């Protein structure tokens, strides 16, 4: 991609390169990305830069996006599935300002989607890139705090500790007690942290036509899933992997196939559910789908019973 022109924005444009990072830095990140794509699921160390937003707030994703974005791209940024959450707004504004690119809230219109904690409900295409913000890239970190040890474990494909952990969950709780950042096996080789997306989203990663890139800024790691990569959630034959399900439907669009967030309506225990993916929900409402709490429904405005 040709990113050599500087940002057109008048406020900060003169002082910063297109998409904030200088071209040498982008080249360094692209090299790490190429390596990551070549070894799916392997965590590539990269010289993560200090960014104008805090560590833990998406600096890894921002650097990856800055390295792959071009002037013709259309960017969508979501946090918790929504375009309107504070951090998503901030990152979208950052790229609108430093790269002057078009932004969108529509999944289908975006060429790059940066996300924190969700994968959009609408299936992605092979001309799209999904960029994940990753806080702790190491799936074994909470089993072994030392990087020197975990790198060795990956090198030797020594994943027994993880299976023991999952087994202990089952013997203690009757379930694998991991609901997000649920570990996956990539192409039969590397155990990978899918970032703290709910395990509901894990199956979407498998054989996804879009390129998936993961950036961890503070921990300085990049990893990737090339299009159509095999991604399996770890499980046992007698305890197969399963995703969350709800007895309810979305209160706004009546979807039963999407990840639902719970909304507390009052202090009497009344609550409703609504799609976490705001674009998916809006699109369904525009197509005429109605949930019980939608304002043009007979019971709209009443709390769910």
């Amino acid at each position, binding site marked *: 991609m040709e990113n050599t022109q500087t940002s057109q924005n008048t406020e900060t444009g003169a002082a910063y*390169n297109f998409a*904030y*990072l*200088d071209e*040498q830095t982008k080249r360094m990140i692209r090299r790490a990305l190429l390596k990551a794509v070549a070894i799916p699921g392997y965590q590539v*160390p*990269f*010289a*993560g*830069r*200090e*960014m104008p937003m*805090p*560590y*833990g*707030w998406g*600096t890894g994703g921002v650097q990856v996006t800055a390295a792959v974005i071009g002037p013709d791209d259309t960017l969508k940024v979501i*946090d*918790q*599935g929504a375009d*309107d*959450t*504070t*951090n998503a*707004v*901030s990152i979208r504004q950052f790229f609108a300002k430093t790269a002057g690119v078009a932004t969108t809230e529509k999944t289908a219109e975006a060429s790059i989607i940066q996300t*924190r*904690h*969700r994968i959009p409900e609408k299936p992605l295409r092979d001309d799209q890139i999904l960029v994940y913000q990753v*806080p702790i890239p190491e799936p074994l970190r909470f089993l072994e705090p030392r*990087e*020197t040890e975990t790198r060795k474990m990956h090198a030797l494909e020594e994943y027994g500790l993880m299976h023991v952990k999952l087994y202990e969950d089952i013997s203690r*709780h*009757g*379930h694998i*007690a991991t*609901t*997000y950042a649920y570990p996956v096996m990539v192409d039969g080789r590397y155990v990978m942290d899918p970032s*703290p997306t*709910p*395990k509901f989203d894990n199956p979407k990663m498998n054989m996804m036509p879009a390129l998936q890139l993961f950036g961890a800024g*503070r921990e*300085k790691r990049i990893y990737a899933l090339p299009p159509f990569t095999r991604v399996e959630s770890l499980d046992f034959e007698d305890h197969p992997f399963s995703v*969350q399900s*709800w007895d309810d439907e979305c*209160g*706004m669009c009546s979807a039963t196939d999407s*990840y*639902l*967030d*719970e909304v507390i*309506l009052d202090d009497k225990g009344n609550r*409703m559910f*609504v799609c*976490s993916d*705001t674009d998916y929900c809006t699109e369904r409402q525009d197509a005429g789908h109605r949930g019980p*709490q939608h*304002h043009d429904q007979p019971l*709209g*405005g009443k709390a769910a019973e």
Partner: protein
Amino acid sequence: MYVAVKGGERAINNAHRLLAEKRRGNTETPEIETDQIEQQLSLSVARVMSEGSLFDRDLAALAIKQARGDLIEAIFLIRAYRTTLPRFAFSKPIETGKMDIERRISATFKDLPGGQILGPTFDYTHRLLDFTLMANGQTPPEAAQGDQPVDDTMPRVLDDLLNYEGLIQDEPASADNDDAPVADLTREPVSFPAGRDLRLQNLARGDEGFILSMGYSTQRGYANSHAFVGEIRYGKVAVEIEPEELGFAIDIGDIDITECETVNKFKGSKIKPPQFTRGYGLVFGQSERKAISMALVDRAMRAREMGEQIMGPAQDEEFIMEHSDNVQATGFVEHIKLPHYVDFQGELELVRRMRKEIEARAQSTPETKAAE
């Protein structure tokens, strides 16, 4: 009627406007100038430059003003600016032996060649609030001039005095390998075990409070490398670069720095007579607390090299280096105030399900319940 939470963008913009207003404070009070910060809060400026890894007094002062005096926020602003700067050249190693000295003391010798030069220091002041400062009192009288100039080349306690007797471990002289590459954690990912160059860079950028506490812990038994301050010196040194096409060095300006060298617990072996060991600290501006702490932790982290037993966190380079950076730490600690409802929803769902199952089990086996 339920309307999903929207309007984040306007709320954020308003929050930022309020922040700007709060930063300014009551407009009846004159606005603080960055020159005033640069001159009168110079130790804050020094800290921001050190931990921001950028020697620029004006920008540090601006960052402090913009951050409303929150120094970690100011360091963050400087780091985010620094990261965008291109590298034109690498300087030659600075010569602290040729420092234009403002202060130089040794705790290991009462008197020594070059003398004890106290310079500007809080040491020995009584910590009593000076209410005349609040009353915007008098301009302080000018400090007295010594009748002898300070030596041009002040001998270094460790290299020139102790090493003369062979009492302190040799450091490979940098003069031999000026061209050897020096690690830079802002340009290359860190891997462990880390070399001493990388460890020192990490300590120099590390949070003053963290390095202080870790240094302190080595004095309280969590390491065994008892230290003396061989020397602290503070003053100006020239920075030189040698452009390849020129073939000789040119002076590009002066920086003021504090350097600390500690003399530590001795060590010997069958073939080597006992010798003192060293720790090293170097920071921008005048910050002796940081320079001394850095030297303590540097020495503690040399445990592996010295064949010492690891007994405390200050000796654990991975622990120190991964947790010393306040910009990293504050970002990640504070990120938990970002929304996590998607993850929390997953947990809610699981806990409810597990509770339901336990309830169902309890109901289906009434006789065991009765037996209890």
